[in-house]
């Protein structure tokens, strides 16, 4: 659609104020809004399940984009927060505490606390060392989960009842649950947008491009980055709580390092440093995965080289392609 552009010149075409990028974002949100209607009309319950997953993982990817895309902190252990959020819900449910008013704040709080510890230790390192140390911490949590014999160990734990909200909302109704996730996704997008465009967000982005200079003009970048890291962790913890409710199941596999890899793929595929990028990336990745697995038994034969191709030739991901600007 968009004419070939030489970086960094913007392709100028638009319909009124609707540029291709805004158009795509509106189309994606509008599509997500009517998924349950489509599912109800066609009786295709699987579509609802699939898209609930898309929406939840989009929240996780969104939180990763906050630190990785905007903050330049490449975390290779982001699935740990999904796991912590999920295990908080699962463990409390198993111990007889079924109220979402207790489960969810604990899920978010535990993930935030973990992010605080990991961030405080990891932010001393830079570059590849940062990638590796976040991976190491995630691996530790992974093995902790395997060691939790009471909560299923390696096999995982089935959650028999979704979080209860005292009759306020009923999560066992799949449409209601979908719209709750969708609403939380919109809130998260708004939150990331506000953070990125605030003074705080400017400091974070400044530290990405030149940390020494930010420090020289008087910003304690470490503290800013740490706070950003904790916010992202908390947001992903919420996604974990949603995921546990969605699948009614938790297991260490949700924290395997390849899951962290999936989240990175979603963010880069959609477009880093673009507010809607992670959502578009999560949507594309999961639909592609699902679509390919229907066509062939060997879907990764196509998906793998596709990712390689994206890494080689698409700077800026899908968002960069649509917006016609290339990002570094």
């Amino acid at each position, binding site marked *: 659609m968009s004419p070939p552009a030489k970086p960094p010149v913007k392709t100028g075409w638009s319909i009124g104020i609707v540029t291709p990028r805004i158009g795509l974002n509106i189309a994606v949100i509008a599509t997500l809004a009517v998924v349950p209607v489509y599912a109800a009309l066609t009786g295709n319950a699987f579509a609802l399940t699939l898209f609930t997953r898309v929406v939840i993982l989009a929240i996780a990817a969104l939180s990763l984009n906050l630190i990785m895309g905007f903050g330049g902190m490449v975390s290779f252990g982001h699935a740990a927060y999904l796991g912590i959020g999920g295990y908080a819900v699962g463990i409390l449910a198993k111990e007889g505490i079924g109220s979402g008013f207790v489960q969810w704040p604990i899920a978010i709080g535990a993930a935030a606390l973990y992010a605080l510890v990991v961030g405080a230790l990891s932010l001393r390192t830079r570059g590849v060392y940062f990638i590796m140390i976040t991976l190491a911490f995630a*691996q530790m949590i992974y093995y902790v989960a395997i060691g939790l014999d009471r909560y299923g160990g390696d096999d995982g734990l089935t959650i028999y009842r979704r979080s209860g909200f005292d009759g306020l909302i009923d999560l066992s109704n799949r449409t209601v649950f979908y719209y709750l996730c969708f609403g939380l996704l919109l809130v998260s997008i708004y939150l990331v947008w506000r953070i990125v465009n605030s003074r705080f967000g400017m400091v974070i982005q400044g530290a990405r491009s030149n940390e020494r200079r930010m420090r020289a003009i008087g910003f304690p970048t470490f503290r800013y980055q740490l706070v950003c890291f904790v916010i992202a962790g908390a947001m992903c913890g919420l996604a974990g709580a949603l995921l546990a409710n969605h699948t009614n199941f938790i297991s260490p596999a949700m924290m395997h390092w390849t899951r962290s890899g999936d989240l990175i*793929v979603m963010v880069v595929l959609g477009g880093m440093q673009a507010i809607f990028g992670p959502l578009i990336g999560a949507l594309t990745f999961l639909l592609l995965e699902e679509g390919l697995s229907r066509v062939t038994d060997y879907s990764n034969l196509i998906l793998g080289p596709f990712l390689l191709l994206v890494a080689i030739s698409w700077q800026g991901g899908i968002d960069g392609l649509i917006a016609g600007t290339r990002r570094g």
Partner: protein
Amino acid sequence: MLYFFEQFLNGIQLGMLLFLLAAGLTLIFGIMDLVNLAHGSLYMLGAYFAATFADWTDSFLLGALFALAATAVTGMLLEVIAVRRLYDRGHLNHVLGTFGLLLFFNEVVRLIWGPAGMTLSLPSEMLNAVEVLPGLFYPLYRLVIIGVTLAVAVLMYFLIMRTRLGMLIRAGASNREMIGALGVNIKLLYTMVFGLGAALAGFAGLMQAPILTVQIGMGENILIAAFVVVTIGGIGSIRGAFVASLLVGLADTVGRAFVPDLLHSFLSESASSSLGRALSSMMIYLVMALVLIARPEGLFPAAGK
């Protein structure tokens, strides 16, 4: 005491195996500045090639030799076709691209060899145990692994410190642009380094194959352990990789052998067994976190970085 010594040998053996993987990774890291998640796939391919060729030739040794050559060639082809195009991208794109390669290779192996694993059986004379200390019998094959990998390490040392290729590798690790500017055929050097790394990874895979089952995804967990080694040792440093692999190998085995017992002395049976299992699996990551907190660039930061 004998038990301790046996575990010590196990630790050395694991450490040497990790060194084979980590040496290639750290060279590729140090010289091409590439984060290569597909390194574990070459380890897996080495094991599959060895199992297949040993089956065809009816000889473990011939199978191993063919497998080594096949992995090196695969590595060089991979570099020329795909990996080379990733060098001028950021680390994040390396993660994305080589993650794609990892998925691809897992699927290729499933397509060719099927989802069930394979076994590679040792020649019968390798199955014996040797009395290394009075009263302590240790499997001969594990001693062979230690010996052969040590020999490889020495060979690597000579290759890197005493040959022209090694000189170029060292120069490349400290300043890539400069050796390119001095007229070295850097593309060829990169391909050779990648092939060398692939051969080392494949070698690790085929050496380990008779002890473990050859299966899809076998490279994934050991890849992470190798990354831990590379990071602890300091990216780009072979010496660091050597020290760190022994450290990680020992930490892992000693953790597995002694942490549960240690915990059992002051905890109940069930609590200590589950906690012990978790703690001993975490051991290497704990070591890495501690090292990085104390020395954010690893034990032996490569010079000029």
